């Protein structure tokens, strides 16, 4: 692990350049996420600024880019619709508290228990949901709206083939906004959503009654936000660890996300987390240190304050085009190959995770059920015990524990020999149930006059057997 000084100033030139690129790349999506939640663009832009700057100091993964995200925006949609902005801000503060506590308890160590089938389900459902949010806007629109959305899509996909220094979505926005202004077509614009920020965010307390009723409203949202935010942030940390061949402190990252959300809520920003796409852009642009994240946040804010008057003129269909691209890149297209190649149970877990998320519109519920389901499949899979009999020698293969003892006991229901040996060489006793099962089998057979010898217990099984006998 590098020293703090290295994490900040070990890569100054590249970090500043990459930070500028990422700052540019954050703007289109922050605006679009504000549109998804139905909040003023300021709420997402302030969030992106404060979250990026704060995580650059307290995050666990240098170079990770955190800001307002689609995943968090999707969780907040209903809260915003039912209760309004002040509750969104309060939920953001509470999310910070929950993440800070979870990080303190070492939640990152639990990431190991989330199989990749669930993570695949998560990103795929996320991609589909972001796509769906754009449909009502596009449905029943005029031809010009479609034309602008499609032209934007074409630009974001074709431009990177020839030019990669500036993020393609930004180029598409500039070009399409220019065309819209010059041709004078009438399209809905960002300005119709709300005002652009003209100053830095300021501190204020969310205007909500501080009572149990409020907590009841915001807690489920905050819990979901915490899970979704940590999941995406830790996944992104893992991707960056792999890209850079450097380790990172995941629990510190979890706490950092918490601190960032906690503070952001007081500065009028919505909850956020790490962005996979922007973090990868940062790496590709040469960003490695904390300075890159810091620069991205500061540059984003600078641009918005300077260019606010221009930003309000961006046509909405252009933003919709950018979001469709975000949805397409979020979706993991190799999943279809995964469905063919992976074990059936993993494919089922992935599909069910997607189905539950799309049905409940809640990313967190899908993930939790996915994890539970895959654990059950794992137990079922590992609890397979086979007994092969050969001239009075019963060989046990597979671990013996509460889930596999029934099958084990059944295998001794029709013993014909007068004397048998039960061989545990390929097995392992795990718990009381396993020892109990052996005793049960032994007693029953001895009552029938069969002599039973136990052999081949490995040392830990032997110890457990002796201890519980």
């Amino acid at each position, binding site marked *: 692990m590098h020293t703090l000084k290295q994490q900040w100033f070990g890569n100054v030139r590249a970090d500043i350049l990459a930070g500028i690129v990422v700052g540019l790349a954050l703007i289109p999506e922050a605006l679009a996420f504000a549109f998804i939640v139905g909040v003023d663009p300021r709420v997402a832009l302030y969030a992106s600024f404060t979250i990026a700057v704060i995580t650059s100091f307290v995050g666990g993964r240098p170079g990770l880019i955190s800001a307002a995200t689609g995943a968090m925006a999707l969780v907040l949609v209903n809260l915003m619709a039912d209760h309004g902005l002040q509750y969104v801000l309060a939920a953001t503060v509470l999310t910070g508290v929950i993440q800070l506590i979870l990080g303190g308890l070492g939640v990152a160590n639990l990431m190991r228990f989330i*199989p990749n089938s669930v993570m*695949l389900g998560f990103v795929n459902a996320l991609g589909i949901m972001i796509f769906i949010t754009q449909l009502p806007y596009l449905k029943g629109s005029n031809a010009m709206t479609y034309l602008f959305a499609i032209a934007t899509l074409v630009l974001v996909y074709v431009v990177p083939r020839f030019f990669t220094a500036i993020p393609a979505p930004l180029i598409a926005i500039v070009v399409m906004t220019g065309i819209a202004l010059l041709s004078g077509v009438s399209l809905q614009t960002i300005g119709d959503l709300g005002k652009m920020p003209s100053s830095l965010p300021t501190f204020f307390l969310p205007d909500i009654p501080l009572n149990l009723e409020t907590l009841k409203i915001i807690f489920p949202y905050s819990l979901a936000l915490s899970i979704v935010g940590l999941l995406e942030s830790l996944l992104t940390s893992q991707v960056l660890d792999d890209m850079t061949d450097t380790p990172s402190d995941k629990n510190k990252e979890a706490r950092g996300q918490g601190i960032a959300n906690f503070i952001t809520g007081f500065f009028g920003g919505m909850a956020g987390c790490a962005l996979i796409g922007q973090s*990868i852009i940062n*790496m590709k642009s040469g960003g490695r240190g904390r300075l890159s994240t810091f620069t991205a946040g500061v540059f984003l804010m600078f641009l918005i304050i300077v260019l606010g008057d221009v930003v309000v003129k961006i046509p909405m269909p252009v933003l919709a085009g950018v979001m469709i691209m975000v949805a397409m890149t979020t979706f993991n297209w190799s999943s279809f190959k995964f469905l063919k190649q992976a074990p059936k149970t993993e494919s089922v877990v992935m599909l069910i995770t997607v189905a539950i998320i799309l049905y409940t519109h809640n990313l967190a519920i899908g993930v939790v059920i996915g994890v539970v389901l895959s654990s059950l499949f794992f137990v079922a899979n590992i609890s397979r015990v086979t007994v092969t009999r050969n001239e009075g020698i019963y060989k046990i293969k597979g671990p013996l524990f509460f889930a596999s003892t029934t099958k084990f006991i059944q295998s001794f229901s029709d013993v014909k020999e007068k004397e048998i040996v039960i061989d545990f060489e390929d097995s392992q006793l795990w718990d009381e149930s396993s020892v109990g099962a052996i005793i049960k089998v032994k007693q029953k057979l001895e009552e029938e006059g069969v002599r039973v010898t136990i052999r081949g217990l490995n040392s830990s099984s032997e110890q457990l057997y002796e201890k519980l006998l």
Partner: protein
Amino acid sequence: MKIAVAIDGSENALRAARHAITLAQHFPGAQLEIIYVADYNKAKDERLLAQSEESLLLKRQRKIDPVLELAHHAGVKAKTALLKGDPSQEIIKFVNEEAMDQLVIGSRGLNAFQEMVLGSVSHKVMKHVNCPVTVVK
């Protein structure tokens, strides 16, 4: 004589590797350098499709292993370089910095349109390395 071969686990990369090994057999004491680049553009998908950090490592190793084995059977000394980043850039950097005498690389055989969309690694590499390049079709 240092011969480099860039591979990506594909069928044509294996053909390139066979050619590089044959080449190495003709130079006594030749050293084969097997280059594999984990593409930054695939970093997210690769991580998502792997169970864990360790299984990701194994998946990558499995792309290199068949070539190592071929070299071993042919009696060619071989080393591997697992790099990360943009494939063409990393290959160019490695070949030039490590002063390779010869690079062998497979070609996917893309048509003009695919090449525009996907970009040809062998094409880009060929233009910027400082040693002779053999493109194996």
